[in-house]
């Protein structure tokens, strides 16, 4: 053990001895009433808004059985196909939908790519710089607000 480690060990023993003599701090008198009030607020919550472990036993068993049954059914029969909502075929006579979701994404991506390639490198760079500057600005403003709000700390 070198001198520094020896020194450190002695300081540690000293601190252990001294700090060990400090009694625990008494909680303020306001703490227990605050806890009671917080717990009372929780108690009036309906059972379904509490953590699952605090649900009545019957509901816990029922929900467990239901979830297991649904999982098993979905595994066995497979997921049902989602119905089309608001399909253009319902609105436009003679319209036959042929675009798949993947195709729609591909079209949008292609359109963006075309727009970027026609806009030129400088336009893209300026756009990215503006977006970056706005991001930094919002981060900076957020930090300033945070510091002002916790200045007392």
């Amino acid at each position, binding site marked *: 053990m070198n001198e520094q480690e020896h020194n450190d060990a002695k300081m540690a023993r000293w601190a252990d001895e001294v700090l060990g003599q400090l009694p625990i701090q008494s909680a303020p008198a306001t703490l227990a009433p605050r806890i009671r009030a917080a717990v009372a607020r*929780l108690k009036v919550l309906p059972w379904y808004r509490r953590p699952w472990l605090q649900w009545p036993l019957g509901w816990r068993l029922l929900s467990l059985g239901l979830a297991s049954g649904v999982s098993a059914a979905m595994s066995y029969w497979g997921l049902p196909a989602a119905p089309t909502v608001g399909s253009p075929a319902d609105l436009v006579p003679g319209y036959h939908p042929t675009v798949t979701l993947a195709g729609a994404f591909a079209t949008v991506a292609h359109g963006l790519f075309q727009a970027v390639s026609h806009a030129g490198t400088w336009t893209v760079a300026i756009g990215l710089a503006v977006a970056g500057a706005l991001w930094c600005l919002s981060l900076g403003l957020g930090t300033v607000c945070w510091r002002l709000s916790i200045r007392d700390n």
Partner: protein
Amino acid sequence: MNDPANFDNFVLNYQDMVYSTAFRLLGNEAEAEDVAQETFVRAWKHWAELGDGTTAGGWLKTVTRNLCLNHLQRYRNRWTLFTDLRRSDDEESAEPEIVAPDDWEEATLTADQRSILNAAIGALPKDQRVALVLYHFEGLDYVAIAEQLKVSLGKVKTDIFRARAALRKKLQPLRETVGV
């Protein structure tokens, strides 16, 4: 024990321990009270699992410590966003030359000294205070503290060493006058 009617007694039995842990780690009465309240609310949510109470003390200490460290981490992440980035190199610097207490004799602290020591702990820089409390009050070793705080082992050792030195310096004048 885990009858809901006993929760009030449970709070009264453990509130000092929970608050004390939170206060030493956070160094702020209002934040310590908030953390203590949150700890007991979580205890109430897990009341059925706390069993016969034999492990409740340890559970409460762990939850309190984790809540405090999360609080400090969140605060540090936001606060040091722009200002403290340059400090990292300074913090890794060599330990200060402090002479160890060769002649420290076992002695009981007076009430005044305990009060000064408590104030001195509260006045320590946050990093030093947290590391010191985790080591000397929570019983964690250097490696565990470094993992908990997500800092280097060297920084933990330096912080604790500096904290002890600062406390010793605070007690030194009294020690000379009182003879402790």
